[in-house]
């Protein structure tokens, strides 16, 4: 290790990997995540060793761990040597619960997973169900565009929440208040459209739950007009500030090769310069009909991930403006008696309509046997859903690929060799939602 003379004597300033064996180096680079407790015991330096390290726990009640993430950190002084995320504190067995709910109730269950972007969870489960039903291409255009509108609004609110919590983690309290304030405006729109601020359950197999309410156009336009100039304020407040840049630049660096190996997606992948966005590369809904840019970074550090999210809000506003202007008229859900309930007015005049309504909400609809995987680009990365059906009204197995769950694996790489104070920056820049990690 290189030593530097300071007023307090010689200090080891740089963490060096020289003189390490291949095994040791592999363990170092791969972080403790790949090492069992027993291995850690045997490879620990003997007592009295000069390079003795200290293991401390961060979380699960630490304010900057975004809920209930616990990190075991192995520290050499103030340097994080290895780390291991420990999860499961929020595990509620949603995948098990889903096996006991009908396909119509399934979306309600999964909104609780990624609670910062619930509409994406609903969308992905709905998309997988529709794929099994074989009605993906029959969804009315208006339903598709309403889904797209809601998802982009949700991306805005989720990224605004990121800005708020990211600011909070850094001690920038005004940013936190601003982020919450803007997010609140988006949530108010959600409340008007879906009836709820969170856990909407609005996107359902066959379309959406209801049509857009009166005055939706003006409200959303007003929201876009209000948020857009405030993003410029954020730029002044954060992006351009030397202190903000010093705090983020070069912290939590990860390269594209590591990200590919670890399976991380979303802003983490894009921050390394890989332009991969499912909205553009594997277009779902009607994303091939709107114009937007995929924002990429070049250094793979925390600043890139912050800047990507900030600019993705701009792209989302751009998409929202196009969507509200191009919103097609027509039905908001498929007219298939076996999948969607009949219109309310029909129930009063038709016995069959009443029966269909009753059957759908009690028994649910039957889905052909088989398996399907659907994926969407959630604010955190690829959100996927793998459903196995056995021909009944309830899924045989529902598996949700939560992007946060996979993305958390990059943390030990980002934090390795950094300061413990930078660990907070790294966690924040991954933007994990623990509800989705633990499911």
């Amino acid at each position, binding site marked *: 290790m290189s030593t530097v003379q300071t007023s307090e004597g010689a200090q080891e300033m740089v963490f060096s990997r020289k003189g390490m064996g291949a095994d040791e180096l592999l363990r170092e680079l791969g972080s403790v995540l790949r090492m069992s407790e027993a291995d850690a015991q045997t490879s620990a330096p003997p007592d009295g060793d000069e390079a003795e390290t200290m293991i401390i726990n961060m979380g699960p009640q630490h304010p900057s761990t975004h809920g209930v993430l616990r990190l075991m950190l192995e520290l050499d002084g103030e340097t994080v040597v290895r780390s291991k995320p420990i999860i499961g504190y929020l595990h509620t067995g949603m995948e098990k619960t889903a096996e006991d709910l009908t396909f119509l109730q399934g979306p309600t269950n999964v909104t609780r997973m990624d609670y910062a972007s619930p509409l994406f969870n609903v969308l992905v489960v709905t998309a997988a169900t529709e794929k099994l039903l074989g009605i993906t291409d029959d969804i009315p255009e208006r339903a598709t565009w309403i889904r797209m509108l809601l998802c982009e609004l949700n991306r805005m609110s989720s990224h605004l929440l990121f800005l708020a919590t990211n600011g909070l983690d850094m001690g920038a309290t005004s940013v936190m208040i601003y982020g919450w304030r803007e997010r609140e405006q988006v949530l108010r729109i959600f409340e008007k459209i879906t009836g709820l601020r969170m856990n909407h359950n609005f996107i359902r197999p066959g379309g959406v739950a209801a049509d857009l309410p009166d005055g939706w156009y003006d409200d959303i336009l007003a929201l876009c007009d209000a948020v857009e100039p405030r993003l410029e304020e954020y730029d002044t407040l954060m992006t351009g500030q030397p202190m903000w840049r010093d705090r983020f630049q070069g912290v939590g660096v990860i390269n594209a090769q590591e990200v*590919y190996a*670890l*399976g991380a997606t979303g802003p983490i992948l894009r921050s390394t310069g890989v332009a991969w966005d499912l909205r553009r*590369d594997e277009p779902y809904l009607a994303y091939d009909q709107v114009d937007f840019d995929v924002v990429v970074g070049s250094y793979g550090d925390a600043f890139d991930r912050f800047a990507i999210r900030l600019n993705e809000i701009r792209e989302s506003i751009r998409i929202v403006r196009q969507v509200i202007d191009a919103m097609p008229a027509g039905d908001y859900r498929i007219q298939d008696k076996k999948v969607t309930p009949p219109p309310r007015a029909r129930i009063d005049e038709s016995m069959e309509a009443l029966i269909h309504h009753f059957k759908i909400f009690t028994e649910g609809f039957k889905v052909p046997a088989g398996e399907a995987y659907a994926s969407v680009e959630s604010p955190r990365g690829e959100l996927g859903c793998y459903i*196995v059906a056995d021909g009944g009204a309830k899924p*045989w197995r529902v598996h949700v690929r939560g992007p946060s*769950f996979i993305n958390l*694996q990059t943390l030990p790489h980002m934090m390795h060799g950094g300061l413990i104070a930078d660990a907070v920056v790294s966690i924040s820049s991954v933007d994990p939602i623990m509800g989705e990690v*633990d499911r």
Partner: protein
Amino acid sequence: MADATVDENPAGPEVEPEPERRHGALVTESRGDVVLHPSRHEVVDLVRTLRDDEGYWMCLDVCGVDYLGYGAPRALPVGAGPERFEVVYLLINHRDRTRLRIRVQVPEHDAVVPTMFEVHPGTEAPEREVFDMFGIAFAGHPDLTRILMPEDWDGHPLRKDYGIGAIPVQCKGVETQP
């Protein structure tokens, strides 16, 4: 043997076409997705070949499925014998924008699959989840411990023979069903 049959009976309409294979694994299609069915002994080599030669650089996910008591016929090709458990891998090729799904059959009496960790380190956490939820062991995994459930938990919750469970209700005259 198959060739000899064809020679003897060239016009025979009963000759089954040779099943499609990719790097030795049976290929099927499911709702537009390409599905491979290797045996559990071949899966690591198959995924390595796909990574090195075909550009499937990322393994998106590993998940388990328990087919105990599954009523419908399983969409499996001849040669991939259905077993109780299945481990499903999702691979993606970013350059060609293609995806592959790999379904591996795992017998109940010997629920062990070789780990994918050496090929895709990102399967570390999902494999632990499959182990935790289904009790399928991954041979060679560096840290095969429970990930979501508490360390001292009994059983594997996502198995079909594991009850949904109930918390005892503290009410008089109410019996909690297990």
